[in-house]
């Protein structure tokens, strides 16, 4: 197989540049071009991939691969089957899509549409039913899964990962203990295309049966080849080339072509698949003449993206009013030779702190170096591509892991040339249905090394309700769950259920798990969840058997203008970041805002308040992390759905300048009062003047409606807020805590306290708003 380059050249003319190790890159002219939605210069795009036949053929975790100039194959990593092979559209249809013949750009990650996913374009040549790609130990292809989502049992078949070697992809998996390498490819000549599966097997440990295709008509074996009568003078033909004794084709159920491999068989051979006019069958022999050859994956391939993109950072692009925090921009490579969209979904630092890896929603990983005080020479290198909406990234021992819709992937740069060679499946037990809202958000580890991520619920295209099939997706086993994956990747368990769209989680130094969420059905406002193992976090459609009445009140709620769509959390582990060490920070994706979360434990009930740290970011606030080297906070974010984020992607440093922070830093609810602690001592007359304070409170209603009206705490039948009657304000002896006596203080889902121009001892004025939730009153 050779990816070359008619398709690519056509794109270059259109102003889109493709570069690969094998060809001299054309000069970029991306300035005025649109971002490329589907890349042609890398062999893999992973998504739910639909195909025309057999009916209902969708690879929920489909690697759509460019296996020739106009030849494409899709591999389903849940079921270890090639779901389809197809060729580019006839000339007459060219120009209808942005990449003729490959896959359509439908889907939220691509053209933004809610509902739908890429479909194989062009002319499909073969396909398989959505079911196991390898038979069980008894030779049966019956689907053993409880629901048609998620992988086959590990004892049956395990997806190990794939190698990228130049433009070739080698798939690696284990079936009944037998390691199998399976390389898709094609032979294109004389107007005909044959698809290849180059299979290497060291020594089968059992009798194995692989699904090759489900014929469109009756299949039979003729001289070792399988021939399918597709009708109208069209046939499909499958042959083995170089097959060892013990490997043979067979027909099952009348039209299914399978490959039988006897126990102890070893060898390297091609499965050649062709479909065409019976009259052209004579051309098949030439197509089948190609000798089996597997890419030399063990040594790693040449880097796919030898060029780097160099940007210059911006120091102090904005600052807080007290000048205690400033933002420095780590300028993203949004102008790049590959015209890739740079929408950051995950970020973490290598141990040196000068380099970070960032994954994008579009499935790329970038590594940026040069993160120093001045940010003058930021060098961005593409490290990997083809991921399935990689919205989480974690680095452990300087090895990159991402969370995607398909799996946790661990990346290996075998030859240490700066690009990933082996994309290892660390754990792929997570379920993924064809819906568009199947996001898998964020990736963290706890102090024991276990991984955590969160999967969204399959929100319907319109925004309300869940699942229902089709483009809306299905409520699969892990929909709306916080998931824990063991340190070695061997085990995935549901840690909590009932989240809707938790675009960001946090794991504290002591292992405390937190999540945000996005208002919607059963999420009346954005919460910050304080997650305990086994807790149900509120979305009743996604309780997965947990008692709906066991709903665990969040740490706090955030009203719409504070947070209409939650991002991630992080804990201040640094002592170089002002006075907040040990505190929790929460990001609002929708409002691109950062909040200090002020926790309080009342008995065994947790509650909190929030105050804004008013910094400005390049994109959304979504993936906050502290840098181990400089101890400063960094945030990466994207704009992919409703947000006020300025740019599609951004990476910023929120740096503490050493100047005094002027802010509330603590909140405590008592029987008759709420106390606010400040970072600075206040001037008594100002702090104790009740005219400087006001407040209000309200509740939300948890229903299947989208979000909630704000309703009176005093009279639940009434919409609106109750004004608080603040009786007095008393300043503590150290001048740093104001205790507000509030009449009729009671639990409220939301309470807002405002103060205007409080005088600090140093003469400065503090104006802030504090939003909090009272779950319990001491």
């Amino acid at each position: 197989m050779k990816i070359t380059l008619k398709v690519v050249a056509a794109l270059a003319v259109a102003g889109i540049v493709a570069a690969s190790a094998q060809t001299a890159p054309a000069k970029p002219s991306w300035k005025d071009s649109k971002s490329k939605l589907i890349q042609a210069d890398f062999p893999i795009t992973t998504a739910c991939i639909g195909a025309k036949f057999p009916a209902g053929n969708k690879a929920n975790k489909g690697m759509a691969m460019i296996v020739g100039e106009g030849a494409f194959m899709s591999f389903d990593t849940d079921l270890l089957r090639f779901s389809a092979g197809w060729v580019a559209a006839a000339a007459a249809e060219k120009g209808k899509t942005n990449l003729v013949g490959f896959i359509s750009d439908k889907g939220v990650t691509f053209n933004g549409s809610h509902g739908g996913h890429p479909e194989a374009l062009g002319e499909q040549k073969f396909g398989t039913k959505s079911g196991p790609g390898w038979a069980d130990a008894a030779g049966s292809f019956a689907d053993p899964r409880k629901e048609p989502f998620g992988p086959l049992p590990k004892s049956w078949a395990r997806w190990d990962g794939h190698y990228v070697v130049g433009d070739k992809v080698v798939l690696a998996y284990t079936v009944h203990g037998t390691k199998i390498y399976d390389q898709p490819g094609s032979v294109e000549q004389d107007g005909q295309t044959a698809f290849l599966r180059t299979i290497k097997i060291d020594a089968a440990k059992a009798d194995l049966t692989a699904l090759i295709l489900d014929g469109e008509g009756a299949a039979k074996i003729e001289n070792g080849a399988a021939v399918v009568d597709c009708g109208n003078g069209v046939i499909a033909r499958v042959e083995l080339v170089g097959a060892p004794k013990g490997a043979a084709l067979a027909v099952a159920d009348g039209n299914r072509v399978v490959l039988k491999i006897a126990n102890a068989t070893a060898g390297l051979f091609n499965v050649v698949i062709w479909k065409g006019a019976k009259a052209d069958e004579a051309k098949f022999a030439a197509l089948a003449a190609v000798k089996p050859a597997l890419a030399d994956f063990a040594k790693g391939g040449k880097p796919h993206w030898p060029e780097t993109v160099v940007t210059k950072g911006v120091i102090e692009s904005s600052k807080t009013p007290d000048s205690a925090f400033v933002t420095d921009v780590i300028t993203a490579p949004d102008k790049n030779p590959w015209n890739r969209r740079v929408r950051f979904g995950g970020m973490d630092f290598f141990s040196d702190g000068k380099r970070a890896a960032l994954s994008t929603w579009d499935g790329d990983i970038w590594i940026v170096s040069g993160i120093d005080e001045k940010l003058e020479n930021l060098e961005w290198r593409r490290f990997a591509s083809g991921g399935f909406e990689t919205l989480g990234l974690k680095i452990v021992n300087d090895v990159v892991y991402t969370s995607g819709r398909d799996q946790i992937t661990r990346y290996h740069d075998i030859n240490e040339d700066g690009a990933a060679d082996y994309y290892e499946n660390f754990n792929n037990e997570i379920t993924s249905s064809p819906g568009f809202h199947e996001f898998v958000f964020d990736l963290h580890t706890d102090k024991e090394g276990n991984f955590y991520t969160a999967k969204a619920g399959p929100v319907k295209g319109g925004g309300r309700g869940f699942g229902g099939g089709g483009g809306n997706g299905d409520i699969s086993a892990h929909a709306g769950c916080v998931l824990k994956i063991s340190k070695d990747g061997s085990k995935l368990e549901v840690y909590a259920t009932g989240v809707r769209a938790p675009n960001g989680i946090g794991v504290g130094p002591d292992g405390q798990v937190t999540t945000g969420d996005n208002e919607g059905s059963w999420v009346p406002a954005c919460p910050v969840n304080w997650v305990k193992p086994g807790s149900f976090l509120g979305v009743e459609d996604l309780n997965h058997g947990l008692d709906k009445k066991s709903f665990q009140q969040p740490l706090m709620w955030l009203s719409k203008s504070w947070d209409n769509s939650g991002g991630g959390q992080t804990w201040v582990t640094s002592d170089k970041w002002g006075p907040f060490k040990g505190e929790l920070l929460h990001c609002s994706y929708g409002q691109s805002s950062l909040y200090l979360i002020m926790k309080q434990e009342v008995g065994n009930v947790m509650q909190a308040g929030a105050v804004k740290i008013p910094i400005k970011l390049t994109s959304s606030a979504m993936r906050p992390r502290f840098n181990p080297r400089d101890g400063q906070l960094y945030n990466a974010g994207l704009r992919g759905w409703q947000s006020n984020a300025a740019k599609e992607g951004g990476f910023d440093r929120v740096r503490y300048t050493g100047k005094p922070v002027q802010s509330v830093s603590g909140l405590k609810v008592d029987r008759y009062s709420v106390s606010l602690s400040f970072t600075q001592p206040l001037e008594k007359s100002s702090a104790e003047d009740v005219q400087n304070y006001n407040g209000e409170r309200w509740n939300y209603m948890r229903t299947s409606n989208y979000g909630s009206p704000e309703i009176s705490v005093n009279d639940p039948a009434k919409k609106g807020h109750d004004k608080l009657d603040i009786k007095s304000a008393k300043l503590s002896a150290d001048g740093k805590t104001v205790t507000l006596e509030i009449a009729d203080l009671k639990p409220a889902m939301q309470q807002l306290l405002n103060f205007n121009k409080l005088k600090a001892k140093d003469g400065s004025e503090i104006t802030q708003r504090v939003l909090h939730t009272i779950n319990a009153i001491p």
Partner: protein
Amino acid sequence: MKMKFRSVIAFLAAWPIALLAQAPAKPAPVAAGLAVTFKAGAASDTATAPNVWLHVAAGQSVTPFIPAGPFTAEWQGVVNADLRGDYAFEAELNGAVKVELNGAIVLEGAGKNGVTPRSKTIRLSKGANALKVIFTSPAQGDAYLRLHWSDKPDKPVPAEPIPSTQLAHTPSGETARGAQLRLGRELFLEHRCAKCHTTPASAQGAPELVMDAPSFDGIGTRRHFAWLKEWILDPHAQRAGAQMPKVFHGTSAPADADATAAYLSSLNAVGPALTFLKPYKLVAAVANAAESPAAQQEEGKTLLEKLHCNACHNLPGAAADAKKISLDHLTRKFPGGKLVEFLRAPERHYAWTRMPDFRLTAEEANEVSKLLLEKLPMFKLPGAPTDPTILARGKKLVASAGCLSCHALPNVKNEFVTQPLTQLVAAKWNGGCLGEKPAAGSKSPQFHFTVEDRAALSAFAATDRKSLERHAPTEFAARQVRVLNCAGCHGQVDGFPAIEIVGGKLKPEWTRDLLSGVLVDRPRPWLSARMPAFPRRAEWLAAGLAQTHGLSPRSPTEPPMDAGLVKHGQKLAGVDGGFSCISCHGVAGLAPTQVFEAPGINLALSAARLQPAYYRRWILNPQRIDPQTKMPVYFDEEGKSPLAEVLGGDAAKQIDALWHYLRLGEKMPPPATQ
């Protein structure tokens, strides 16, 4: 624009801030809005106003009780601050203004179609702060005043209206008298008193003076005899709020009603061919509308529910609410098929009907009719008497009893004569039609006025009644909003803007066309509810709503469109380097790309709909206007945009560029979708 300004600054400097900030010791005012007293020469009139907004077109009267010409207006009340804080004031005006807060002058100046400089910063106390504003009309042109404030005077963001919810006043004898006079005048108008007690028509007079009543032309084909008879005999017994009086009294009343109804039933002339207002575009024509959450939520609702008929009516089978109009009589009132015709064009035979025109299609009208009638018992109704004697008696009664003062009937002369208005001395406005009880043998129509109503009518009678010859559109709008029960839906039902804001939000021309029933694009086609038409009231209602907010009834000409700004606006609306407005908002023929729960209004409609000032406030911070909106806030308090590359990241410039782009309407070029 010319401004002259006395130095308020020097004045303020003499007052320690703390003094200004002292809270008044009086009890907190309880009534919403402000008291406002208008004076012209010796004439004085006190009303209440929602805000310090005023607009009087040249030649108009500021209120019906003040002659046209120069006037002053003085607002009194308090502004309630949420928190002790610093504020600054400014005014857009044509005229002169003086603003006093807590007894100190904070803004004083005159302007000709301009805006005053912003006042110095004023510290307001938490709670009530005494507010007094005096406006003097200009020598020429429309008089107007819009007082604005900023609660962030140190930030470069525009001033905005003071939220009306933060204004209050203490009712006084003057406000009570103003309210009583208005009630008396309204009762006089709504009961069509001037149809019998005639008064010279005036082009500048109250629009209601020409209000009609259901036409008798062909009424026999549209109403059942049995219902007509019952209604004529005692309208008030049929409907508590009926304005039609009981005309026939005594023992002959049933026979009179019978004869009158019989005669009316004989009037079966066929009118001109039926024509209807053009329906709105079908929801199905809107991309994704059927899949939208709003549509999902409406699933299973009947058309009656979707149209919110129950805002005004007790639907058959539902619990009765005394304030609403029962529909239990429909099978007795409408002959077969006539309800459908009525529903499709309620104003056809009665231009001033309060029943709105929902612009129903024939299918929808049939559906509504079916849903209403299927729960009602069907009667075998008696036919109308056809005895010529009875019909002749009926015809005579129709001609003589005053029916034709209000109801039209071609070719029959109204023989009823009574005293014209000028001859009705105020002292006698307690007998006849206005008697507490009908006098024995009285032939006066009986209206069921309350004690309060009669007092108000007497008070009105004691004025010079010149107010009938004057028309203040703001007051007309306020009356119509009430009698049409606009607040039955607006501010009640999700998706309906509060009626109090629409005049400041919508361009009067658009409101007029909406109320006239000529617009075919619904801004929110995903809602199953629709705004019905009130064609006869459209013009003045639209004008009055805008003028209530101090805005002209005719949108001022805007500066020429700037092609460069249009380009910037197009970029800002797109995904690539813009705010991605296209995610939620369609742009002309281009559907939104990512509607999620909250579809937005097609941007091609925006410039035709929205007051430019409202648009600017909305875009700058939508959540400040509607805390529940799903529209994000993009611009910050420093007047900066997050998109620094466009127009230097200046919020005001970007907002202006978007407006230029929006002004292209249906011709807006599509923004980038990727």
